[in-house]
């Protein structure tokens, strides 16, 4: 039991900005149909791999965020800023001088902005006068840039960290945030994950997963996490209760293709920590795409844990594309969306899962509530 709750969130993905497009996509449960769109500020000159990708079309950072402070912002940071702003607004947590020092940010990533890193590196290595690189672009190449920009924009002066954990990064972010809150480093944390869909990222996904049939997507999902008593004291609405976050690493299982067993163990430990029985889990949001051989890892793990009484399942990548680190955040966004408009699910318990090819597995157990009285979302 973590004693922590989510009091609001924000999300963007190929489906659009905010929770409404995600809700609509879940309702249709269709496959994301997107076409590579160019960064509106800087048209992409690099072609996408044949399958394309699923970027958020016509994402215009300056229109959404204004001109101030956005001149050197890269796409990844802009996505994080928009989702973070939404999360603060959705939660009703306002930042002022009384609490700014006690609110922090932790974001998950795979490799930062591959486009910013490779553009800058290319400028360093190949330009005629390499030392004339643009220093103002350098921060974008550092993996923690988006978290720093989020802190600057919203005045969040507490703990600020970036976890580079790939497909497990968001679960690791939740664990990090839980530690930070439980050990008194902060009173509220923005917990999120972000990944941009540029030609660079789409190629990386394509080359890493040559047999995968899932194309790159993009997204950001950020949540306000705080201690349960603080949320209740402030009157903020509790969307989700984080009952447990469990992650572990079994490289031998990763190599031998036995990750499903490791993931099943991880889920069981999470259930035990949460004091929840398997039959109480009504919903599972997996990182599956519905069209990938590797989907079997989560299918088998769920089968080992739940037997014939399988929870309902939502395959998040089927809707969003391969969003790497952001997938985890979008899974939680999917759960929040499922609860938000449906009081019949109030108090029900869900599971979300993830894994990495090198042997990382993770699971979170979450309980959710609706917000029927509110028009937000």
């Amino acid at each position, binding site marked *: 039991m973590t004693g922590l709750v989510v009091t609001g969130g924000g999300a963007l993905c190929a489906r659009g900005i905010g929770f409404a497009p995600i809700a609509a996509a879940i309702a249709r449960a269709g496959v994301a149909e997107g076409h590579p769109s160019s960064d509106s500020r800087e048209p992409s000159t690099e072609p996408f791999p044949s399958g394309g990708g699923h970027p958020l079309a016509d994402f215009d950072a300056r229109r959404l965020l204004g001109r101030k402070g956005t001149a050197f912002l890269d796409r990844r940071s802009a996505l994080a800023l928009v989702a973070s702003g939404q999360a603060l607004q959705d939660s009703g947590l306002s930042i002022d001088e009384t609490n700014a020092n006690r609110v922090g940010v932790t974001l998950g990533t795979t490799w930062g902005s591959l486009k910013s890193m490779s553009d800058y590196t290319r400028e360093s290595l190949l330009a005629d006068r390499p030392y004339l690189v643009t220093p103002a672009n350098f921060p974008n190449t550092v993996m*923690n840039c988006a978290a720093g920009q989020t802190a600057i924009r919203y005045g969040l*002066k507490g703990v*600020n960290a970036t976890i580079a954990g790939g497909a497990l990064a968001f679960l690791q972010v939740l664990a990090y945030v839980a*530690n930070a809150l439980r050990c008194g*480093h902060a009173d509220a944390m923005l917990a999120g994950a972000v990944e941009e869909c540029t030609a660079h990222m789409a190629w990386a996904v394509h080359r890493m997963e040559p047999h995968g049939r899932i194309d790159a997507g993009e997204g950001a999902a950020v949540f306000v996490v705080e201690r349960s008593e603080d949320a209740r004291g402030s009157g903020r609405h509790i969307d989700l209760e984080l009952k447990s976050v469990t992650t572990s690493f079994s490289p031998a299982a990763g190599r031998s293709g036995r990750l499903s067993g490791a993931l099943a163990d991880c889920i069981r430990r999470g259930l035990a920590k949460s004091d929840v029985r398997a039959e109480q889990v009504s919903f599972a949001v997996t990182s599956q795409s519905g069209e990938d051989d590797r989907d079997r890892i989560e299918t088998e793990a769920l089968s080992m844990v739940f037997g014939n009484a399988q929870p309902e399942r939502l395959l998040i990548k089927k809707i969003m594309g391969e969003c790497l680190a952001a997938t985890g955040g979008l899974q939680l966004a999917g759960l929040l969306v499922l609860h938000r408009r449906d009081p019949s699910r109030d108090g029900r318990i869900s599971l979300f899962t993830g894994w990495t090819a090198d042997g990382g597995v993770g699971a979170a157990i979450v309980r959710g509530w609706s917000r029927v009285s509110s028009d937000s979302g």
Partner: protein
Amino acid sequence: MSALIAGSAIRTCFGDGAATFQGLLQSASGVGELRHADAAKVNVSHGYHIREVGDETLFRASRWLAECASEAMAQSGVDAQRQRVVAIVGTGLRELRAVERSALEPLAVSVERLHFAHAVHQACPHIREVVTISNACSAGGHAMALAQDLIELGEADAVLVAATDTMTESMLAMIGRFAEVPTDQVRPFDAKRTGVLLGEGAAAFILVPEGWPCRPLARLLSTGLSCDASHETVLDPEGIRRAIDDAFTRAGRTPAQVDLVIAHGTGTAINDPVEATLIRQVLACGRAGPLITAIKGAIGHTSGGAALAALDVAQRCLATGQVPAIVGLREPLQEGKGLRFVIGEPVKAPIRLAHIQAFGFGGVNAITLLEKAA
């Protein structure tokens, strides 16, 4: 709640931890001509390289990390097969250098090796988890803070806290962009300082709970964390001050008790005056204040590894009562007049409480307080 340091290993341009401390006590500088990059192109002529024969190999950051992890684990006596050990690795640029190399030469770089899980697992096969914190130049300090939390919450029996970074040409080009004439020596807090140079390095510590059966190297009291939330690259004294306050509150100590400060001290025009002023205001508090040293003049700026390299030096100062001089410092900057910088020769003094500062891009600050174990 405090924790104990049961093992420590570092790699710098001088070698291991003992060799590094020896080099520092001799006021030696590990600087040399820049290797593995075209000095004229990046406008950087010098660096603090880990000495290796032959050409640059791939995955050096991972290799040093694995060496330090093995060494620290062996020293600690912690058995990862019987005890729950998790690893936290701090880094700025991870294995970006391998990506640069593979872009320029026909090299096969496997994606799995761009992450540190592989290297840590090779060194410590029974490790339960590997978490990478990418917090630029304060990554090691942030890793140490998380490690202490995991011990406090009982989430792990012992934590391997590590950090590593090598140089990339892109980062060198950024540094070269700020210097009209390339510098040949980092001169922290010097009136005529000429800018920062990169170092290569890695570090690993083993953190265990109080009462653990071991001969502790030092007691970790606290790490205070904060974010400036003002600028990606410019220090904000108010933000750093919050991290300092946090560290002392957590530790139950006061600034007046500090015997030694290991400053971040990058030798840049802008950062050093801010840090010196802050030390005067917060730690000296109108008196002579604690001894101040800094290690980047001797070993360069080792990026994500910088905070943990300073922690290793701090634990050796606590153990030996010797404080090395700031290599490269001749005449302190105006803002540092009257502060007790260690200049020229090492100083012998009883050191009980050490205060270590680390600041990173993104405005992330980590202040660690380390106390003599017994």
